[in-house]
């Protein structure tokens, strides 16, 4: 296949002017980027054919020549992982020549489609990213921990190992996770579930703040996290990587290994395996009993890419078992008060690897088939089918029932179809149009002996989107998109007769089929939501160093299953949580700005945003329900209007080749406009500072990281009282679940040594210490804060072997 033939048309041609005087002092500079994701390519060789003039790109992908003679020259750009690119240029003056290299054969077709744009996922929306080195560092932890290093991302925890990424104060259904081009369907069941995905299967993580990736859905006002697998090389090769971690805290570790075989005729096959196990974790002063974790992930991929068409099949299976702190399982408010009053968890057992109840077990299986075809050099279509099966079991401490019987046993199956068409026109316009159909089936196993938390349902979603991007020059781009989705729910849920009547559902929903079983009603709610999303943005490059972008996003989200139907006792907060059938779609308007200085010793970004959300869905206390365990606060999902604003900022300063200093900081303000109070669980101001030393020739590096999280002084008051008996008297005591914990600071240290086991593949050994000073702290966004301190110091050794 004459590859050059396809690559050549993509090269954008710049600055053709007639030749002027013959003096050899022209300056040629430019940037070499990855065509797939616009990331700068480091170490690419740029040379002028027929001469011995050559240079290499810096870490920012930049190159520079001076003293070049005018005339007709052929530039060649080469990189070990890429196909080389040639361009013939007639030079008459100082010129900027930018190149895009392709080292991902799957995306090769885009070369033809978008020949003169250097497009990111969506041009105007600022994205942050994690590369494979940063991902590897968090190999033994989770997705949320890795993303937490980016400004504007926090982690919401409902257990020491149950962590969800939070963007601009939003999480769960308001943040989309896209793996291999398809939305992950596992956030339907509510806040207590971490994304069931293994970081080690991916090599690039992009964070798109503000939901402008409408291709993946229009319902995520927080943002979208896009996980991409490793890139392909179109040549015969076999390579792999193994990462081994050993941690002192939790006396555990992880192993992850992946191997990939590619052939020059476009076939590729890859497999990945990872496993991890930790025992009970340690806070600075005690054991966090029952916080062990086990996890296993396997994925297989087979495909063929023939540039103009290609297919891929992949399968992955993720399984985990997570212990929930024993001291956090409580029976009533009095138990909660007792836990709040003591500094130390009420139950501390000796260290063990055993994971007992309360615990969660999850399995996520994913099957994906994709096919693409480039019908002409102006159009390409792609077909995706994805099947996800997600099971979750939660085990509580129970009486008279074998420990192997879960209290929650759910199975969610999702079929996802996507047809996508891309084409380009003259006038630098690119279009993308697609249709997305989703069929989802949730099954709640009745053998638990506990009232269903989430009912059985079928959900159908059909959506269509139309996107466009206009990039008349390298320094300006405009993009826009619109998406329409119809969501239909067909639910079968049992309600207590008394609840059904108390909430007036019989009057509000007279059309729902109802069947009575004793004191229970089987109801068949049918709900419809039509949602619209639009976005538009511009991005400009101002001179050599500065860039700016402005994005507006309208997103609408239909309520999820837990918001509509939750029904049960929450064991970690002693609250009765109820969904609401009356919820309407949530409508968010968001404006994001980005200013960046991308070059020089001093680099920085400033990203302010503001959003207003009507029908913002939240859960809050509405009353008290008397039960045999005493009075329980009732929390019910409801809607309000909310406003958010905030700033994410980052500054990098390069002292010298060896020393760099980075500061990241973010602040979020969120207010409930109807109840005139702050929203709950909003990240307080936080900042991290990183001092890094890299030895000459990058033989080793040292990194010192300081994390600072301030006290959240904006919080809603959700306290209640409980009557307790003390010294023979009944007294009323306040249960303070509202006041956030104090500010804290923790320091991490990281030492990495690099070496080559095999030519061109860098392996490393790292020594990592987290929370060096054994800081005792509790985090506002960790629900375990009511019961115990956060994790103490951890020494970790990491080996990365690339071959």
């Amino acid at each position, binding site marked *: 296949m004459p590859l050059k033939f396809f690559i050549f048309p993509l090269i954008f041609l710049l600055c053709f002017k007639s030749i002027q005087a013959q003096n050899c002092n022209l300056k040629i500079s430019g940037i070499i980027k990855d065509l797939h994701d616009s990331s700068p390519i480091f170490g690419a060789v740029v040379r002028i054919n027929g001469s011995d003039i050559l240079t290499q790109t810096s870490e920012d992908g930049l190159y520079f020549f001076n003293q070049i003679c005018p005339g007709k020259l052929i530039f060649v750009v080469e990189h070990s992982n890429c196909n080389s690119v040639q361009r013939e240029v007639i030079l008459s003056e100082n010129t900027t020549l930018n190149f895009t290299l392709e080292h991902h054969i799957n995306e090769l077709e885009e070369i033809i489609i978008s020949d003169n744009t250097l497009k990111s996922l969506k041009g105007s929306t600022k994205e942050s990213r994690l590369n494979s080195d940063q991902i590897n560092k968090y190999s033994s932890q989770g997705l949320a921990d890795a993303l937490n290093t980016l400004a504007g991302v926090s982690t919401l925890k409902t257990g020491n190992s149950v962590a969800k990424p939070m963007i601009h104060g939003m999480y769960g259904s308001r943040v989309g996770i896209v793996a291999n081009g398809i939305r992950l369907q596992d956030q339907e069941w509510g806040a207590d579930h971490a994304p069931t995905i293994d970081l080690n299967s991916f090599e690039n993580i992009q964070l798109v703040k503000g939901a402008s990736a409408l291709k993946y859905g229009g319902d995520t006002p927080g943002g979208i996290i896009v996980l991409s697998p490793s890139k392909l090389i179109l040549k015969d090769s076999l390579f792999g990587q193994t990462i081994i971690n050993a941690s002192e805290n939790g006396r555990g570790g992880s192993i992850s290994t992946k191997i990939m075989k590619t052939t020059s005729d476009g076939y590729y096959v890859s497999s990945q395996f990872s496993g991890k196990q930790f025992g009970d974790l340690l806070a600075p002063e005690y054991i966090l009993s029952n916080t062990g974790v086990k996890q296993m992930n396997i994925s297989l991929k087979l495909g063929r890419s023939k540039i103009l068409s290609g297919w891929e099949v992949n399968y992955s299976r993720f399984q985990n078992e997570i212990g929930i702190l024993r001291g956090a*399982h*409580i*029976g*009533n408010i*009095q*138990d909660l008060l*007792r836990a709040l009053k003591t500094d130390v968890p*009420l*139950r501390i057992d000796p260290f063990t690897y055993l994971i007992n109840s309360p615990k969660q077990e999850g399995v996520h299986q994913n099957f994906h088939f994709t096919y693409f075809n480039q019908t002409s050099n102006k159009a390409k279509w792609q077909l995706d089918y994805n099947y996800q099966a997600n099971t979750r079991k939660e085990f509580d*401490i*129970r*009486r*008279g*029932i074998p420990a192997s019987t879960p209290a929650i046993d759910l199975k969610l199956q999702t*079929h996802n179809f996507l047809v996508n068409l891309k084409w380009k026109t003259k006038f630098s316009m690119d279009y993308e149009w697609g*249709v997305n*159909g989703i*069929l989802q*089936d949730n099954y*709640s196993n*009745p053998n*638990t*002996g*506990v*009232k*269903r938390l989430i*009912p*059985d349902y*079928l959900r*159908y979603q*059909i959506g*269509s989107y*139309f996107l466009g991007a206009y990039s008349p020059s390298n320094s300006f781009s405009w993009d826009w998109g619109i998406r*329409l989705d*119809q969501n239909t729910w*067909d639910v*079968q849920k*049992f309600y207590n007769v008394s609840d059904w009547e108390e909430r007036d559902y019989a009057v509000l929903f007279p059309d729902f089929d109802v069947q009575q*079983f*004793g*004191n*229970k009603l*089987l109801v068949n709610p049918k709900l419809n939501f039509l949602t619209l999303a639009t976005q538009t943005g511009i991005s400009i490059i101002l001179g050599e160093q500065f860039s700016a972008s402005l994005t507006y996003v309208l997103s609408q989200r239909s309520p999820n299953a837990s918001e509509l139907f939750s029904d049960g006792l929450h064991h970690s907060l002693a609250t009765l949580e109820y969904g609401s059938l009356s919820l309407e779609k949530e409508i968010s308007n968001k404006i994001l700005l980005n200013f960046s200085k991308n070059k020089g010793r001093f680099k920085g970004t400033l990203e302010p945003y503001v959003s207003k959300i009507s029908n913002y869905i939240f859960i809050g206390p509405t009353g008290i329900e*008397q*039960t*045999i*365990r*005493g009075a329980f606060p009732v929390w019910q999902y409801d809607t309000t209007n909310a406003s958010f604003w905030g700033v994410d900022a980052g500054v990098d300063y390069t002292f010298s080749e060896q020393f760099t200093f980075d500061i990241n900081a973010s602040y979020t303000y969120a207010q409930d406009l109807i109840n005139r109070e702050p929203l709950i669980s909003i990240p307080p101001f936080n900042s991290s500072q990183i001092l890094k030393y890299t030895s000459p020739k990058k033989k080793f590096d040292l990194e010192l990281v300081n994390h600072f999280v301030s006290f959240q002084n904006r919080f809603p008051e959700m306290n209640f009282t409980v009557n307790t*008996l003390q010294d*023979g*008297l*009944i007294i009323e005591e306040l249960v303070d679940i509202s006041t956030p914990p104090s500010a804290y600071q923790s320091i991490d240290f990281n030492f990495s040594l690099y070496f080559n086991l095999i030519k061109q593949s860098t392996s490393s050994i790292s020594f990592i210490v987290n929370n060096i000073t054994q800081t005792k702290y509790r985090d506002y966004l960790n629900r375990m804060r009511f019961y115990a301190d956060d994790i103490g110091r951890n020494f970790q050794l990491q080996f990365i072997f690339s071959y």
Partner: protein
Amino acid sequence: MKFFLNIQHKTLYVLLSLIIISCSKEDPEPINEEELITTVQLTFRAPGITDQIVRWQEGSNNSDAISLAANTQYEVGIIFLDESDPSDIEDITEEVKEEADEHQVFYEFSQLNIGLEQSSSDTLDSNQNPVYINSLWNTSEVGSGTVRVYLIHEPVTKSSSTRDGFAGETDVAVDFLITIE
């Protein structure tokens, strides 16, 4: 563009509805809730006095009041029932006895001086601690107050004189008024 979208919508609706028809859902089974306790019942027995039975039942909101005689020893028995299905009442006390090591019944009194003692007919756990399913209450002077009845699951210790001392999770916490005459 809208027109274009609409057509595509229709064809996809047809396609999807075909899939939907092929996987229609069965009616879910009602769940038989297993660990439910709806009722706490106390029986007071003393020589020469008629047995007194008081109940706390979920949903009824009011518990019965207890009336005791001063300076008397009562043998107090407790049972826990699941009466959610009136045609199939389950006695949960049996489970508590079987799992005596994981359970503790406890009484806390307010504004009353009542001595709580082990009864010889009580269930003992494997360490010979009383579970207080049967207990002895010694009343003294006349007065009125409240008793809070607890069933504690997986207490940290089995020997304590206060509710806080046992820790563990509360499965039952209900109040009864007491008058001593």
